[in-house]
C-alpha cells in the first residue's frame, strides 16, 4: 500500500515537472483569458462557500 502511494506521488511529481512551464505563448489575449478565469472561479468559490454557510445556519 505504502509502495503504491509512493509510486503515485512520484508519478505526480514527474507530471508536475513535465508540465512545469506552459507551452503556449503567454500573449496579452492568453493572459486576459486566464485572468478572467481566475476571477470567475474565485467568485464562484465565494458563492459556494456562502451557500454552504447558509446551509449550515
Amino acid at each position, binding site marked *: 500500500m505504502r509502495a503504491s502511494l509512493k509510486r503515485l506521488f512520484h*508519478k505526480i511529481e514527474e507530471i508536475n515537472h513535465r*508540465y512545469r512551464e*506552459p*507551452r*503556449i505563448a503567454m500573449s496579452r*489575449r492568453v493572459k486576459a483569458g*486566464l485572468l478572467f*478565469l481566475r476571477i470567475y472561479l474565485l467568485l464562484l468559490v465565494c458563492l459556494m462557500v456562502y451557500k454552504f454557510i447558509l446551509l449550515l445556519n
Partner: protein
Amino acid sequence: MNFFSKLYYKLRKMWKAIQLYLVIAGPGIVVMVADNDAGGITTYAATGAKYGYHLIWFLLLLIPAAYYVQEMTVRLGAVTKRGLAEAIFDGFGATWGWFSLVDLMLVNWLTLVTEFIGMTAALNIFGVPSWLTVTGVVLLMAIIVLNGRYWTWEKIALLFCALNLIYIPGAFMVNPSVSDILKHGLIPNFPGGFNGQLFFFLMANIGTTIAPWMLFFQQSAVVDKGMQEKDIPWGKFDTLLGSALTVVVAIFIVIVTGTILNGTDIESAGQAAEHLMQTDRYVGTFMAIGLFDAGLLGAICISLASSWAFGEIFGWAHSLNQNIKQAPWFYASYFFTLITSGLVVLIPGAPLVLITLFVQVIAVTLLPAALVFLILLLNDRHTMGDYCNGVWQNLIGGFIVVAIVVLSSLYGISVMFPNLFQ
C-alpha cells in the same frame, strides 16, 4: 449515353463519399446523442410539460451552438493527436491541468450517478429493482468495452444512439397538432413573458446541451479513432449531423410532453413516463425505454471520458484498442468510476436530489474553463497551423462561448439560490 455515364460516375462518387463518411462517422454522433442523457431527457420533458411547443425555436438555436463548440475538439484532436486534458496540461501548465482533471473527474462521477438515477427510475416503472438495474448495466458495459476494439465499441454505441430515436414514433402516437407546432414552436416567443422561471428553463436547456465531459470525450474519441487532418471535414460533418440529431430528439420529447402533459410541473423524466403511462401506455413505455437508453448511453461515454483523461496524464495505455492486460489502469479507472457511482444509487436514503443539483453547480466551474482553454488552444498557430481558428471562427465561437459561460453560470447560481430568479 453521355448522360448515363455522367450519372453513373456521380452516383459512384457519392457512394464512395458515403462509404468514407461511414468509416469516419462516430465520435460526433455518439457524443451529441449521448448528450441527451438522463438529465437532458428530464429537462426536455419538463420544458414541454411546462411550456408546450413554445420553446422549440430556442432548441433549434442550440444546433449551431453545440456544433461550433464541438467541432473545435475535432480539429484540436486530429491535429495534436492528444486529448483535451493533456492539451490543457501541456498548454497551460500543471496547475490549470490538475484543476481541469480533478474537476472533470468530480463532475463526471456525479453525472454518472445521475445517469444511474435515471436508469433505475426508468426500469422501476417496469418493476425491475434498482440493484438488478445497476448490476445489469455494469455487466453490459463490461461486455461492451472488454472486446478490445474501439470500432466495435463505437458501433454498439451507435446502436444505442439509434434507440434514442424512440421518441420520434412516440411523438407521432400522441397525435400532436402540426399547425400548432408550426404556429407556436417556430416563431420566437417567450410564453408568459420573460420571467425568472422561463429564464431558468432556457438556461437548463443550454446547460444540458453543452456539458464539460462532451469536450473531453469527443477529442479523446477522435484521437482513439485515429483521425487525421484530412478527416477533419468529415469529422465536422459528423458533429453537425450529431448536433442536428440531438436537437431533433429533444424537440420530439418536447412534442410528446407538450401534447399530453401541457401545463404540468414535471420533476423527472421517470415521473413524466409514469404520467404518460396513465394516458397512453405505449407512449409512457417509450418514454421509460428512452430514459433508460439515454442514461446508458451517457454512462458509456462519461466513464470513458474520465478514463481517457486519466490515461493521457498519467501516461498509462488508454485505448479501447488495447485489452485489459495491455491497459489495466485504463479499465480499472473505468470500472471504479462506474461501480462506485452505481453503488451510490443503492444506498438507502442517499441524497440523490442534492447530487443532481450539485452536478450543475460543479459543471459550471469546469465548462467555462474548458471552453476558454479550447478557444486559446485553437488560436495557437504554432500547434494548429492551417487549422487555427480564423477571424470568423473566433467571432462566432467567442460569442457562443461567452453566451454559454454567462448563461450556464447564471444557471449554476440559480441552482444554488433558487429564489434569485423568481
